[in-house]
C-alpha cells in the first residue's frame, strides 16, 4: 500500500505547529476562505457529498445533522465536543496539541454552514496543557481578525469560547455536554426535542466532535470528491486511529478506513508489533465501549461497517487497546465494570443500578470469590440494562454492556478456569448479606 499522506496530522512534528503563523504558512485558513465565499447551504451540501461521518463514536453524517436545524431559526449555537473521555482514546488530544488552528478553522466553517453566532469548545478538564494551547490559539485567531466580527471580510461573525468541563465521562454525550455547558449536572436529556431543534439555552444547537470539525478545512479546500476517494464508500475520509498497550509504537495514526486491527498493531508505520515478544490476547478496538475482540478476530476492518460483524457496537473512536497474554481477564473485566460504575450519571434506573452491580460482581470475581454463575449473572445484567436501545436515555449503558458481554463470551474458558482455580469456599464466605 502506498504511504498515506497525512491530512489531519500533517502538521505533527512541525516546529511551533500550534501557532497561527506556522499553520498559515503550511496552507491553513484556506478552506474557510473558500467556504465563506459560498452560501451556507452550499457548504452543507459539500459536507453531505463528502459523506463525513461523525468521528465521536456514533458515526452520524455531519452534514445531515446540520440539515436538521429548523429553517426559520434566528439563532444557532455550535458546541465543539472536546470532552474526549473514552478510554483509551486520545486522537482529539493530539489534534488539539498539534494543530489547534485546524480545529478553529473547522469550527468557523461549521459555524458558517450552520449560521451559528457562538461556538463553545467544551474541553475536558484533564486537558490542561491542551487547554492553554487551544485558548492561546483562539486568542491569536481573534487578534488576527479570524474570529469575531466579519471574518475574512465576509458578513459572517463568530465568537468562540473555550469552556472547561470538570470530570465526567457522560458529558461527552451531546445532550450531557449541553446540560453541563448550562452549568448543571451533565445528565443527558430526553429526546425529542433533539439539540438541533432545542439544545443549548433552548436554541437550535449543533454538537460536533473535534476530529469531525478538523476534517472540514480539508473538505472545503480539496473538495468532497477528494475526501470520498479516501477509504471505502461508507467510511470516507482520513481517520485517526489510536493504539495503546504493549505495542512497540503506541500512538495516534492517520489513515484511510481500510486498515484492520492487525495492521494497526503490527504494521511498522503503525503500532509496529508487540513489545518484548508479548502476545496479543484481546483487543478493545473502538474505545472500550464497543466491545472486545479475541486474537482470532484481528482482521476486523476499522471502518463504520465491519465491527458489527464481530459482535461489536460499532467503530466508536477507533482507539484500540491491546491486552497481552500476561493480563488476567478478570482484572480487565473489573477495570471496565468500574469505569462504567464510576461514570454512570445515575439518571436511568438500569444504568445506575446495573453498572454498580456489575462492578460489584466483577470485583468479587477479580478478588477470587467468583462463581461460574456470576458470569451468567453478568451477562444477564448486561442484557437487562443495555444491549437493546431504549432502556435508557443515553447510550452509556449500551456501551457498558458490550465490553462485558463480549469479554465473557469470547474469554469464557479462561474466566471459568480462573474461577475454578480459586480457593474453595472463598466465594461463599464473602456473601455477607441476605441469601
Amino acid at each position, binding site marked *: 500500500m502506498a504511504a498515506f499522506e497525512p491530512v489531519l496530522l500533517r502538521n505533527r512534528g512541525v516546529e511551533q505547529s500550534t501557532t497561527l503563523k506556522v499553520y498559515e504558512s503550511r496552507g491553513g485558513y484556506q478552506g474557510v476562505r473558500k467556504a465563506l465565499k459560498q452560501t451556507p447551504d452550499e457548504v452543507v451540501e459539500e459536507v453531505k457529498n463528502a459523506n463525513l461521518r461523525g468521528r465521536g463514536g456514533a458515526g452520524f453524517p455531519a452534514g445531515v445533522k446540520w440539515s436538521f436545524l429548523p429553517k426559520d431559526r434566528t439563532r444557532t449555537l455550535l458546541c465543539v465536543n472536546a470532552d474526549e473521555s473514552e478510554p483509551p482514546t486520545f486522537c482529539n488530544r493530539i489534534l488539539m496539541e498539534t494543530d489547534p488552528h485546524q480545529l478553529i478553522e473547522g469550527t468557523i466553517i461549521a459555524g458558517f454552514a450552520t449560521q451559528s453566532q457562538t461556538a463553545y469548545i467544551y474541553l475536558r478538564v484533564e486537558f490542561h496543557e491542551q487547554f492553554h494551547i487551544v485558548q492561546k490559539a483562539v486568542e491569536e485567531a481573534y487578534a488576527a481578525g479570524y474570529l469575531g466580527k466579519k471574518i475574512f471580510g465576509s458578513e459572517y461573525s463568530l465568537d468562540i469560547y473555550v469552556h472547561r468541563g470538570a470530570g*465526567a465521562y457522560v458529558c461527552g454525550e451531546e445532550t450531557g455536554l449541553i446540560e453541563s455547558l448550562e452549568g448543571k*449536572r451533565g445528565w443527558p436529556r*430526553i429526546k425529542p426535542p433533539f439539540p438541533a431543534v432545542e439544545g443549548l439555552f433552548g436554541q437550535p444547537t449543533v454538537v460536533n466532535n473535534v476530529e469531525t470539525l478538523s476534517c472540514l478545512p480539508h473538505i472545503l479546500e480539496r473538495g468532497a470528491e477528494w475526501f470520498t476517494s479516501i477509504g471505502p464508500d461508507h467510511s470516507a475520509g482520513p481517520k485517526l486511529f489510536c493504539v495503546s498497550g504493549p505495542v512497540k509504537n503506541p500512538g495516534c495514526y492517520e489513515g484511510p478506513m481500510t486498515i484492520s486491527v492487525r495492521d494497526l498493531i503490527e504494521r511498522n508505520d503503525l503500532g509496529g508489533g508487540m513489545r518484548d515478544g508479548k502476545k496479543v490476547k484481546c483487543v478493545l478496538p473502538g474505545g472500550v465501549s464497543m466491545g472486545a475482540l479475541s486474537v482470532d478476530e484481528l482482521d476486523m476492518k476499522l471502518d463504520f461497517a465491519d465491527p458489527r460483524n464481530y459482535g461489536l457496537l460499532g467503530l466508536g473512536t477507533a482507539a484500540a487497546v491491546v491486552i497481552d497474554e500476561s493480563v488476567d481477564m478478570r482484572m480487565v473485566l473489573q477495570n471496565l465494570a468500574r469505569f462504567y*460504575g*464510576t*461514570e*454512570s*450519571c*445515575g*439518571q*436511568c*434506573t*438500569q444504568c*445506575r*443500578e*446495573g*453498572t*454498580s*452491580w456489575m462492578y*460489584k*460482581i466483577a470485583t*468479587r470475581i477479580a478478588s477470587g470469590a467468583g462463581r461460574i454463575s456470576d458470569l451468567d*449473572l453478568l451477562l444477564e445484567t448486561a442484557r*437487562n*440494562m443495555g444491549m*437493546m*436501545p*431504549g*432502556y*435508557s*436515555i443515553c447510550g452509556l449503558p449500551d456501551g457498558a454492556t458490550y465490553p462485558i458481554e463480549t469479554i465473557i463470551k469470547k474469554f469464557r474458558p479462561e474466566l471459568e478456569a480462573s474461577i475454578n482455580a480459586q480457593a474453595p469456599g472463598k466465594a461463599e464466605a*464473602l*456473601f*455477607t*448479606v*441476605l*441469601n
Partner: protein
Amino acid sequence: MAKIIIDGQEVECRDNIPVLQAAVDAGWDVPHYCYHPGLSIAASCRLCLMEMKMPHPQTKEMGWAPKLMPSCQTPAREGMEVRFATEKVQQNQKNCMEFFLLNHPLDCPVCDQAGECHLQDYSYKFGDPESRMVDQKLKNPKKDIGPNTLLYSDRCVMCTRCVRFTDEVSGTHELGLVNRGSRLEIDVFPGLPLDNPMQGNVVDICPVGCLLDKDFLFQRRVWELSTASSICPGCATGCAIRVDHADDKVYRLKPRYNPGINDWWMCDEGRYGFKYIEDSKRVTSPIVRRGLDATSPEWADIPEIVQFRFEQHVRENGGEKLAAVLSPFMSCEEGWLLIEFMRETAPECTLVMGPVPMEGDDQSFPVGATGDKVKFTILNEKCPNRRGVEMLLEAAGGNQCSFDEFVEKAGGGSFTAAWIVGGYPKEWVSKELNKATGKIDLLVVQDLLQNSLMTSAAFVFPACSWAEREGSFVNAGGQIQPFDWATNPPEGGRRDGQYLYEIAGYAGLYNGERVRKLMAAKIPAFKEIHEPPVRPVHAH
C-alpha cells in the same frame, strides 16, 4: 381527542397527553415512578417502557419497533398503536424492580409508607420475589432535611419527583441531587433545609418511603386508616383533601386531585392545621342557662327549648331586636338552616356576616410567579366559606348589617337576642364584641373553643370542627365543593348540621345532600356543585 390503540383496545384520550397517562386513565396499571402529571417529564425510571408501532426506517412499513419507548415521554397521537402486555415490556418491568431493590434496605416493618408503597405494590405485581444480589448493599444515610421532613435516602428510587417539585411548583429549589451514579442522593444545602409552605407535598409525591412526614412518623400503620373526602378549611382556596383517620382521631391530611383549584397539591398550613380538633378547650356539650341556672339538657329536648325561648322573646321584644351572626367557617347547609330558623321566627331579624380572618398577603407558587405561571395560591383569607355565607345572605335579603355595625348596634342596645356562630380555630372574640353582648338577653353562642361570650350566654352549643361535619364550602373561585365528615364529634357533642336541622324544624337525620336539594329549590346557584374527578386507582 385522539384515538389510540393500547394492547389492541381502542382508547380515547386528549391529544398529546403522554401515552402513560392515557393508559392509566383507561385502567391500565402501568408502573411508573418518575412520571407525575403535575411535573415535567424526566423519563428516567424507565419502568413505563412500552412497545410501539413505528414506520420502518427503510421500507416505511408500520411495524413493532425493536426498541422500547418510554410511554411517559411519548405523546398520544391519533391512530398510534402501543402495547404493554408483551413479554418484552414485562421483562423490563421485572428487571427494573430487581434493580430498584438491589440496595433497598427492605425495612418495610418499620417504614411508614408500607401499605401505600409503590415499591411494595410494583414488586408484588411486576417483580420477582428473589434478588440475585449477594454482595454488600450500599447504605445511604437517613437525613433530617427540614423542620417537618425526613429523608431516608436508603429507600430512595431516584425518581427526582421531589426535586422537580421544589424547582417547578414551589419554586424554592431547596432540594437537589448530590453525587452521581449509584451514589446519587437527594439532599439540601446544609443550613438551608426544606422549609417552604408547600413542602409537605414532597412526601405525598414520593412513591416510596424515602420522604417522611415527621408529624405522621410512626403514628399509625396506613392500612388501619379510613379516609374521608373533604375540603381544607384553612383558606378560601378550598383545596380538595383527604382526611385519614382511625378511632375517631385525625392522623393526617392529604391533597386530592382537584384540577384548576389545587391540582395535586396542598399547603402545609392546611396540612398541619387540623390540630385544633383535639384542643382541650373544645366545647363538648350544650349548656342552657336561665338566670344563674345552668343545665346541660338532652340533645333531643333542645330544639323545643330553643324554639320556645326565641318565639317568646320575639313576642315580648319584637322581631327587629333579633340578630344572627353567621361564620365563614359554617357550611352552606348549616348557614341556610340557621337563616331558615331565624327568618321563620322573625322575618325582620338582622343577618350579619361574622368576621373574616385575614392574615398577611396571598402567597403564590412557584415563588415569584405571576399570571399564568402561578400553580398554587395560599389565600390570605383564612376561612373556607365566606362566599358561601355571602350567597346565602344575598338570597335571604331583608335586614342585614356588617359585623362592625352589629357590634356597634348591639353595644347601643339595638338587639336583645342574638345567635352568634364562631367556629374559628383561633381566639376571635374582641373586647368590643364581648362588651356589646352584655346588652343581649337571649344570647346563643355556637362555637368550637371556649370563649368569653359563653359566660353570659343563654345557650352554648358546641360547634364541630370541619372534620366532624358535612356540607359544602364555596371557595374563592365560587365553586361549591361538598365535603364529608371523617370523625365523630367529641363525646357529648353533636354535628352542627344535625341540631340546626332539628331547630329549623326538620325531623330525622341531617344529610348535606338532602339539605342542598332544599336549598337549591330556593337558591338555584346551589344546583351545581363542583366535585373533582376521581383519579384512577393506579394513578399516583
